[in-house]
C-alpha cells in the first residue's frame, strides 16, 4: 500500500511502452502488408487502457485514503474534504486532469479497437497507430513534466485543500464529459490521417467514422453546457458565458466539429468534399490540442487556467507543432490525390453545406483571433489590450445570422441540383410567420425590444423551418424517418431553443444591488424579494453566513432562498453561493454582498447587508437547447446505416468508391 503511487508511475511508463508498440508496429505493418504487425494494434489498445486505468485508480486511491505524501494529493486535498470531492479532486488541477485526459484517450482507443470489425484490418491498424502516436505524446508529457505521483517528502500532515470553487457537483460532471468530447475528436482525426497516409478516402470507410464524430461532438456540447451552467450558479455574478480564453478554447473545437459533422455527411453520401472533410477533422482535433495547450501553458490569463510552468508549456507546444504541422504537411502532399466528388449545381444542398462550413469556420477563426490577439499585441509591442464580450459577441452574432437564415433550407434542398423556388415556396410562409411573431414580441417586450424581437423571430424561423421538414417527411409517400433525420431535427430544434434563451435573457434580464435591512422588500421584474436576515451556519469544512430571502410572485410566497457567504477553513477563501430558484420561464437569483456598517454603526447591529437580486427570464432554455443539440448528435449516431455491413452497400447507386 505504501508503494502504491510508485506502482502508478510504473503503470504509466508501461503504458508509454505499449503505446510505442501500438504506434510503430501497426503503422509499419500496414505499409508493408505485415499481418502479424497489424494484429498488434487491437491487443495493444486494450492493454494500454488497462494500464492507464490502473494508474488512474492508484491516484484515486491516494486521494480517497488521503495520502499526503503524494505532492499532488497534498496540494489539492485536505482532511476535512468530503468524500465525494475526494474522488473529483483527482482532476482538480493540472497533473490529475492530464491523467484523466490520458485515460479517456485510452478509452476511446480501446473502443475503436472493439467496434471496428467492419473495417479492413490495415485501416484499423493505421487508425489505432495514429491514436497510439497521440498517446505517446500525452503519456510522455505526464511522465516527464507532470507526474501526478511525485512524492512530497517529508509528507505534510495536512493538505492545502481543493479550491472551494471546485467543491461542487459541477466538478463531478464537467471535466470528464468535456474531455470525452475534446479527446473524442481524435477518432475522426486518426481516421483522416490514416486516409491521407493510405492516399485514398473510401466513402464507405468514412461512414464508419460518422457516429464517432457525432458522439464526440455530443459530449463536447454537453461538457460546454455543463460548464456554462456551473459558472452561472457557482460564480455568483449570474452570467453564463464570458468569452473567457478557456471557454473559447473549448468552443473552437465545437465549431470546427459542427462543420465536420456536416461535411462528413456530404462526403459519405455523395463522395464530395473529401479534402474538406479531412482538413476539418485535422482542424477539430488540432483545436482540441490547442485548447489543452492554452489552458495549461500560462500563455493566457483566466480564472479557469491551471497554474502554469513554461517547461510544460514548451513541451505541449512542441507536441502540438509536430501533430498539427505533420498532419497539415501530409494533407498538402496527399490530399490532391483524392478523387473529386460528383458535380453539383449552384442551387443544391452541397452549396448550402459549403456556406454552412464557411460561416462556422469563420466564426471559429474569429474566436481564435480574438483570443490570441492580446498575445500578438504584446509580442509586437503594441501594448496590453483586452478583447472581451463586446468583440466576440458582436462578431459572433454577425456571422451566425446568415447561418440561422439558411438553416431551414438545408434539409429541404436536394443534393446535386435543386430548383431554388421549391424550398423557397415551402418555407416562405413560415418566414413570414416568424417575422410577424418577432414584430409582436417587439411590441410586447417590457424592455430590450429589438433583441427580444430578433430572438423570437430567429428561433421561430428555425423551429418552423425544421417542423416543415418533419411535415414533408411524414406526409410524403410513407418513407421512413431515419435516426439520422431525427437527430438532425433534435439538434436544429435545440438551436431554436438556445436562441430563445440566449437572446431573451440578455434582453429581458434585470438586476438590482442594494442595502437591505431584515424585513425590507424590493420589487423586480414581477417578483418581490423580502430580506429576512442572515445567520451563521456550519458546513463540513466551512463557516457560512446564511441569508434568508423570501421570494413572492403576485403576493404569493414562491420560495425561500438561502444565499451564502462561505469561509473555508483551510485557505480562508471566501465564496459566494447564490440562492437560485429555477423556473421554466425565468430564474430568480439572489446573492449576498457584504455586511454593512462599521462595528459601532446601528446598521450593523440591525443586520443590514448588501444584497444583489436578479431575474433572468428563459435562462434555462440556453442549457435545454444545448441538451437537445447533444441529444441530436447521439441519436443521429444510432442510425442503422452506420451499422450496416460494408459488403451490403457495394454497388448501391450513389456510391462513389
Amino acid at each position, binding site marked *: 500500500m505504501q508503494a502504491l503511487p510508485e506502482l502508478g508511475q510504473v503503470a504509466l511508463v508501461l503504458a508509454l511502452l505499449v503505446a510505442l508498440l501500438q504506434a510503430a508496429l501497426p503503422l509499419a505493418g500496414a505499409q508493408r502488408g505485415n499481418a502479424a504487425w497489424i494484429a498488434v494494434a487491437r491487443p495493444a489498445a486494450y492493454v494500454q487502457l488497462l494500464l492507464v486505468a490502473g494508474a488512474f485508480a492508484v491516484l484515486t486511491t491516494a486521494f480517497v485514503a488521503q495520502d499526503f505524501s503524494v505532492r499532488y494529493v497534498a496540494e489539492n486535498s485536505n482532511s476535512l474534504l468530503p468524500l465525494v470531492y475526494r474522488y473529483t479532486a483527482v482532476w482538480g488541477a493540472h497533473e490529475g486532469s492530464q491523467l484523466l485526459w490520458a485515460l479517456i484517450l485510452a478509452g476511446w482507443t480501446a473502443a475503436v479497437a472493439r467496434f471496428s470489425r467492419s473495417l479492413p484490418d490495415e485501416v484499423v491498424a493505421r487508425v489505432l497507430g495514429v491514436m497510439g502516436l497521440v498517446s505517446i505524446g500525452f503519456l510522455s508529457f505526464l511522465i516527464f513534466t507532470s507526474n501526478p505521483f511525485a512524492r512530497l517528502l517529508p509528507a505534510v500532515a495536512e493538505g492545502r485543500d481543493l479550491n472551494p470553487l471546485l467543491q461542487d457537483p459541477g466538478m463531478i460532471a464537467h471535466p470528464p464529459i468535456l474531455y470525452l468530447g475534446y479527446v473524442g475528436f481524435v477518432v475522426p482525426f486518426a481516421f483522416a490521417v490514416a486516409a491521407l497516409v493510405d492516399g485514398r478516402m473510401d466513402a464507405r470507410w468514412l461512414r464508419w467514422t460518422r457516429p464517432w464524430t457525432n458522439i464526440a461532438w455530443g459530449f463536447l456540447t454537453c461538457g460546454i453546457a455543463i460548464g456554462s451552467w456551473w459558472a452561472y450558479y457557482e460564480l455568483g455574478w449570474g452570467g453564463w458565458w464570458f468569452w473567457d480564453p478557456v471557454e473559447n478554447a473549448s468552443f473552437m473545437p465545437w465549431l470546427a466539429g459542427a462543420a465536420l459533422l456536416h461535411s462528413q455527411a456530404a462526403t459519405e453520401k455523395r463522395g464530395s468534399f473529401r479534402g474538406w472533410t479531412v482538413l476539418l477533422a485535422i482542424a477539430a482535433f488540432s483545436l482540441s490540442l490547442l485548447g489543452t*495547450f492554452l489552458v495549461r501553458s500560462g500563455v493566457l*490569463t483566466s480564472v479557469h487556467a491551471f497554474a502554469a510552468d*513554461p517547461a510544460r508549456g*514548451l513541451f505541449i507546444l512542441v507536441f*502540438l507543432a509536430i501533430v498539427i504541422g505533420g498532419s497539415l504537411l501530409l494533407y498538402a502532399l496527399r490530399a490532391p490525390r483524392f478523387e473529386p466528388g*460528383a458535380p453539383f449545381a449552384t442551387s443544391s444542398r452541397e452549396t448550402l453545406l459549403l456556406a454552412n462550413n464557411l460561416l462556422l469556420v469563420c466564426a471559429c477563426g474569429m474566436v481564435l483571433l480574438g483570443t490570441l490577439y492580446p498575445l500578438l499585441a504584446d509580442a509586437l509591442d503594441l*501594448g496590453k489590450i483586452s478583447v472581451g464580450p463586446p468583440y466576440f459577441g458582436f462578431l459572433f452574432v454577425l456571422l451566425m445570422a446568415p447561418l440561422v437564415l439558411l438553416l431551414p433550407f438545408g434539409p429541404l434542398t436536394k443534393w446535386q441540383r435543386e430548383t431554388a423556388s421549391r424550398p423557397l415556396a415551402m418555407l416562405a410562409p413560415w418566414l413570414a410567420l416568424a417575422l410577424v411573431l418577432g414584430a409582436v414580441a417587439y411590441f410586447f417586450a417590457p424592455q430590450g425590444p429589438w433583441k427580444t424581437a430578433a430572438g423570437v423571430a430567429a428561433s421561430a424561423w428555425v423551429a418552423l423551418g425544421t417542423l416543415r421538414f418533419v411535415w414533408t417527411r411524414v406526409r410524403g409517400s410513407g418513407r421512413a424517418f431515419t435516426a439520422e433525420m431525427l437527430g438532425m431535427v433534435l439538434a436544429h430544434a435545440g438551436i431554436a431553443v438556445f436562441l430563445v434563451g440566449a437572446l431573451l435573457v440578455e434582453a429581458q434580464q434585470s438586476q438590482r444591488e442594494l442595502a437591505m435591512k431584515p424585513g425590507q422588500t424590493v420589487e423586480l421584474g414581477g417578483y418581490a424579494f423580502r430580506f429576512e436576515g442572515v445567520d451563521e451556519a456550519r458546513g463540513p469544512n466551512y463557516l457560512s453566513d446564511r441569508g434568508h430571502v423570501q421570494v413572492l410572485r403576485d403576493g404569493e410566497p414562491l420560495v425561500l432562498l438561502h444565499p451564502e457567504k462561505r469561509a473555508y477553513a483551510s485557505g480562508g477563501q471566501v465564496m459566494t453561493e447564490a440562492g437560485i430558484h429555477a423556473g421554466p420561464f425565468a430564474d430568480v437569483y439572489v446573492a449576498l454582498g457584504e455586511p454593512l456598517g462599521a462595528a459601532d454603526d446601528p446598521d450593523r447591529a440591525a443586520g443590514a447587508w448588501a444584497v444583489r437580486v436578479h431575474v433572468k427570464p428563459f435562462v434555462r432554455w440556453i442549457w435545454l437547447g444545448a441538451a437537445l443539440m447533444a441529444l441530436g448528435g447521439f441519436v443521429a449516431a444510432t442510425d442503422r446505416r452506420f451499422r450496416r455491413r460494408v459488403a451490403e452497400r457495394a454497388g448501391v447507386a450513389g*456510391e462513389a468508391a
Partner: protein
Amino acid sequence: MNQPIEPAAPKRGPRLAVVVGALCFIGFVALLSYGVLQSGRGDREALPSPLIGKPAPQFSLPLLHEPGRNVSAKDLAGAPYVLNVWGSWCPECRVEHPVLTRFALSKRVRVVGYNLKDEPEDALRWLEQFGNPYMLVLADRDGRAAIDWGIYGAPETFLVDARGIVRWKHVGALDDAVIDGQLVPLLRKLEAGR
C-alpha cells in the same frame, strides 16, 4: 456512377495556398512560443503605465503626520522623487520595506510615501513598528487621487523627475535587482541628461 476525370487543377493555386498556409503555421507557432517564454516572467501580469512620459497627475493630499497640511505636485517639483504606494493592510509592502529603507537611507533620491486607503492610526502604528523611511507620507484615505495615478494596488512605486514627468513605474515589491537594475540607472540617465 462514372464521370469523366476532371482535368488537373492549375498548379499555381494550390502551391500558393500551401506556402501561405505554411507561413501562417510558422507564425502561429512562433507566437505561441513567445507566449510560453513570456509566461515565466515575474511581471507578466503587471499593467504598463500610460503615464510614462507624461506629467504626474495634479494632486493635493494631506500629510499623514500633519493632517492639517496639504502637499501638492507643485510642492514636490524641482528635484526627482520616488513615490512608494503602501498600506498597513498590504503584506507585500512589509516584504519590500527593508529594501526600500536601505535605498532611502542612501539618500540617492527623495522617497515619498503614499499611504493608500488606510486608517491613520493603522498607518502610523505600522510606521512606528517597522520604521519610517519616507521624507514625507501623503495620506490618500479614500483612494480617489490614486485613480489619477493609475494605481490599482500596493505596493507600487513611481519615479517622477525634476520637471514633474513620470519616468518609471514598478508594480509589486521592490527588490535590490529592480533598484540596481532599473531605478538607479534611470536616475543616472536623468541626471546626465539635464
